[in-house]
């Protein structure tokens, strides 16, 4: 194809868009809404995953031992736990260390009255998992192990986080699928209108000897342009919103800042921008190509 033909086709595609402004706007708005929601859910899911991951990493199972257990048995248990694949890290805390920590944290200078360690039996292992979903298995293993008195865990938190995350993902996939279909339908309608408006012109083109490609290409360009604009607008809005919203959450719920670790805007948009553009242009392409094939028998 010649360069001049290429530009001519692009120009005709843009003219098509402006020729039926309202339909083009409706299509852009629908694609925009679709990709806005996609971006929104993507940002939420990604952040959620990052928060869950952080929480998982900080979450541990603590085990305490039977009264009067020998130091050898404690070491034996430690070695057994460490061998398990789901365990990423295991930290031993002696009774003295526990007492020292407790004193520092809660008693301060009032601790002077104690002559011996009141937490004599509170030596423990803190066990960190590489995968929080393996927690129940580990806990039941630990409970059956000889010499262990108590297993402390935070199962509820972990399963809730994963559950909410999955729910958000399912809902977003559902909504996006519906909007996807609506977008393609609207693009198809826009292109159909464009074809009927240009019927006469298309006929003249055919009399003069235009190839199928030459007649059809502007309509496909039209669809792809609509898709591109429909992708860039929500991405721009999301970009601005994202930073604002995070700023707001951090200010408003400053207690949560330690728990919530939001992803930087670049991390989200490095993937979101190309993904949205590909989806937008792809929807435009699909919607227009199928329509042109159906309504533009040249």
């Amino acid at each position: 194809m010649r360069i001049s033909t290429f530009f001519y086709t692009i120009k005709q595609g843009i003219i098509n868009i402006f020729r039926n402004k309202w339909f083009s706007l409706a299509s852009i708005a629908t694609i925009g809404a679709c990709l806005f929601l996609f971006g929104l859910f993507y940002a939420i899911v990604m952040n959620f995953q990052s928060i869950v991951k952080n929480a998982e990493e900080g979450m541990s199972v603590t085990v305490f031992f039977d009264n009067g257990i020998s130091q050898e048995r404690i070491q034996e248990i430690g070695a057994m736990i460490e061998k398990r694949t789901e365990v990423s890290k295991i930290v031993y805390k002696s009774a003295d260390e526990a007492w020292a920590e407790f004193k520092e944290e809660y008693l301060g200078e009032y601790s002077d009255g104690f002559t011996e360690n009141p937490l004599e039996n509170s030596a423990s292992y803190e066990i960190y998992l590489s995968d929080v979903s393996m927690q129940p298995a580990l806990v039941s293993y630990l409970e059956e192990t000889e010499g262990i008195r108590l297993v402390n865990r935070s199962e509820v938190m972990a399963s809730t986080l994963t559950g909410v995350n999955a729910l958000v993902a399912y809902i977003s996939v559902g909504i996006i699928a519906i909007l996807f279909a609506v977008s393609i339908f609207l693009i198809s309608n826009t292109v159909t209108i464009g074809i009927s408006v240009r019927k006469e012109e298309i006929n003249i083109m055919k009399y003069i000897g235009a190839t199928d490609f030459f007649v059809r290409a502007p309509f496909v360009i039209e669809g792809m342009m609509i898709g591109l604009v429909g992708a860039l607008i929500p991405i721009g809005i999301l970009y601005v919103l994202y930073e604002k919203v995070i700023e707001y959450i951090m200010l408003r719920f400053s207690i949560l800042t330690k728990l919530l670790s939001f992803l930087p805007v670049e991390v989200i948009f490095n993937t979101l921008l190309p993904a949205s553009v590909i989806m937008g242009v792809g929807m435009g392409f699909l919607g227009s190509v199928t329509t042109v094939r159906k309504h533009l028998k040249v």
Partner: protein
Amino acid sequence: MVRSDAKSRRRKKHISGGDEIITLNNVSKAYATGAPALNGVSLHIKKGEFVFIVGDSGSGKSTMIKLLLRELVPTSGDINVMGYDLTRIRHRKIPKFRRNLGIVFQDFRLLKDRNVYENVAFAQRIIQVSNKEIKRNVPSILAIVGLAGKYKAKPRQLSGGEQQRVAIARALINQPSILLADEPTGNLDPKNSWEIMKLLEQINENGTTVLVVTHNREIVNAMQKRVVTMKKGVIVSDEEKGGYIDED
């Protein structure tokens, strides 16, 4: 022996038709409803001829033009235009075939939202001529049809005669071998009709084969060209330097 005879006969036939640019052999065309629009029409036109097609309204003239453009396919019979067998031509080849035709209609069929220059340039864009060449070709063709000063005007700002000149310029710019005109003066006053016919004659003198469907008795009689007369889907007369046949 027999086979090679047949072969050479076929080749001979082809050679003898060498200067024949349009051939209709026993062509019929029936639409879904009504009597056939064309009924066993045979017509031979040589390169460089100027032919009037006349006949009552509904006699099948436009149908014949549409068959020659390969807008329609015949129900039966053979059509050959510039060596293209139009009953067998592949869909993909039709654009290439049409690029050798110039077509002019009664209703001009210009693009209303584009100016004169763009309307003519359009025909070249379609066949992917470079912008540079378009800029050179359009003004010279507009000069030929007498519209050099009006290249910026939109169709609605032009008279019927001027609009038809734009259409002719568009038909000519790709230097077609054949110009088909279906009632080109049907919407024009006598003066403009004459000017358009003279223009078509001039185009013919430059070597283009011209087929003109018309109702204009006066012009046909004055111009002394070949006249093919149709009636109810058949050719009833075909005369060199003929005139408009009076029916009643």
